[in-house]
């Protein structure tokens, strides 16, 4: 857990998403291509933000990386091995290193089990047996060890999301995916929970794929960011480059539309000359 290698060219690549396409058949309608030829890669101790608006395919991409969504074409390699779709069988061992934190804090924990035992489930997967214990994990995410005997409904949304993060980190994942993990939280919590996720992922030496619609927050925690729109990646690069000098029209429009809390009463813009 002291593996704090900074993301650099030397770090091993844990995830390679190669030109994947995910297509749905909508009953009585045309085919919907939710993800259309997306490629991504992620190294250990690196944070990749995947940003886009609703329906752009970012969550589908995340689910495809976990094997929750069957691929129409392309491949996902995790530690060099292909990710197989999750079937009715147990998930193969080598895939247990991919864990996910979901959007809805009210549904991400089993309401009828104590949180301590849910976190223990995660610890059971950790290859380094004594890397963490429940109490430590709870403290890491700002909860008290005595909370382990409580049930999910006794916590607020933000706290539940921290518990879900603790459970995922406890497994000692190589790849942690956050699927809009902060979207349902109060604004004042979003930044903190996102930062917590980054810190814990880096500390555990795993890569973090952070899905969000909020570029402003992703910017503060990600090393690289990919901007997605209508199933394709419009732009990808180091976060500061994308933030300061977006090259794609869509990324510019997205950036311009973010209302800034500067007290100036500036209405978020819609670039006037997108035609070129």
């Amino acid at each position, binding site marked *: 857990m002291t593996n704090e290698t900074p993301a650099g060219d030397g770090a091993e690549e844990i995830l390679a998403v190669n030109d994947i396409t995910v297509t749905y058949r909508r009953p009585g309608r045309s085919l919907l291509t939710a993800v259309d030829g997306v490629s991504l890669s992620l190294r250990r101790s690196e944070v990749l933000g995947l940003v886009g608006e609703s329906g752009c395919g970012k969550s589908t991409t995340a689910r495809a990386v976990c094997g929750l969504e069957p691929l129409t074409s392309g491949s996902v390699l995790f530690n060099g091995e292909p990710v197989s779709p999750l079937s009715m069988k147990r*998930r193969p061992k080598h895939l*247990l290193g991919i864990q996910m934190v979901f959007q*809805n804090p009210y549904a991400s924990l*089993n309401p*009828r*089990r104590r949180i301590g035992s849910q976190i223990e*489930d995660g610890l059971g997967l950790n290859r380094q047996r004594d890397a963490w214990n429940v109490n430590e994990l709870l403290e890491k995410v700002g909860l008290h060890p005595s909370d382990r005997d409580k049930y999910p409904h006794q916590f607020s949304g933000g706290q539940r999301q921290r518990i879900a993060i603790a459970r995922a980190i406890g497994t000692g994942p190589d790849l942690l995916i956050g699927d809009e993990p902060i979207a349902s939280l109060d604004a004042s919590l979003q930044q903190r929970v996102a930062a917590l996720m980054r810190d814990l992922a880096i500390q555990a030496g795993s890569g973090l794929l952070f899905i969000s619609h909020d570029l402003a927050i992703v910017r503060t925690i990600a090393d690289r960011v990919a901007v997605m729109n209508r199933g394709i990646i419009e732009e990808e690069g180091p976060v500061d480059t994308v933030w300061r000098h977006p090259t794609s029209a869509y990324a510019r429009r997205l950036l311009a539309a973010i209302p800034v809390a500067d007290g100036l009463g500036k209405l978020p813009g819609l670039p006037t000359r997108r035609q070129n």
Partner: protein
Amino acid sequence: MSLEQGLTRPRFRLPATLRNPMAVVGASIILLWILVAAVISHIWPVDPLAQNFDRLLPPGAAHWFGTDQLGRDVLSRTLAGSQTSLPLSLLLVVCAMILGGSLGAIAGYFGKAIDETIMRIADLVFAFPTIILAMVIAAALGPSLTNAVIAMLIVSWPSYARVMRSLVIGARGSEYVIAGRLMGSGAFTSLWRDILPNVLAPLLVLATLDVGTAILLLSGLSFLGLGAVPPTPDWGAMVSDGVQQFSSWWIAVFPGLAILSVVLAFNFLGDAWRDSLDPRTADAVQGRAI
């Protein structure tokens, strides 16, 4: 903002249910009838099968509920009727719940061909009105209480399967179940540990309400002569006797009241329980009705 109200899982809360006066009335009547079926009817001094020459006597001091066309005591027959109706209905509901619940859970969780097969069979059962199908099956099997119960089992499992299936499908996609799968739990663990405990309450409510329906159905079949075989005291068959002996109202009225009271009791209990699980009513401050 409204997330919390919408997604708080219904919790198993029988005590809260029992604070409802309707539930208390229902539970008391059920307990009373269980006592009658298990104890009182067995030690009742008058034999429900004993015939005497005082036929079709109206209710009076000797026979509080009167006598039937064979001179049998209507009161002791009504009490004895609980020995068949209650245990058979409860047994039936338990069997239907286990059978239908398991099939529904399997269909909902595994989906695809298994789901299609199970649910098309269920649809087929639903294509018939209940009593008609039960009547058709019982008639083919021949009249007896056992066959009536088999017929009822065939017609009643699909409703559990449907409810269970939709509950499981709802829960299957929920994030804690997926999180469990991602952590490597197999299908069985996932169903047993993550899904079942969270969907059991509505199924049990359905079962409670269904005991009433089962009693109505069983007595209906007996009324048609497809259930209890004479001389077994049975409420539905007794009402049927009353159709023949039209002017002797007491033959039919008392067993009918017995059916009504048990069914109503189970419905009161089940309805109050359902109410306590319902987020709309549990959370009374939601917006004024118009």
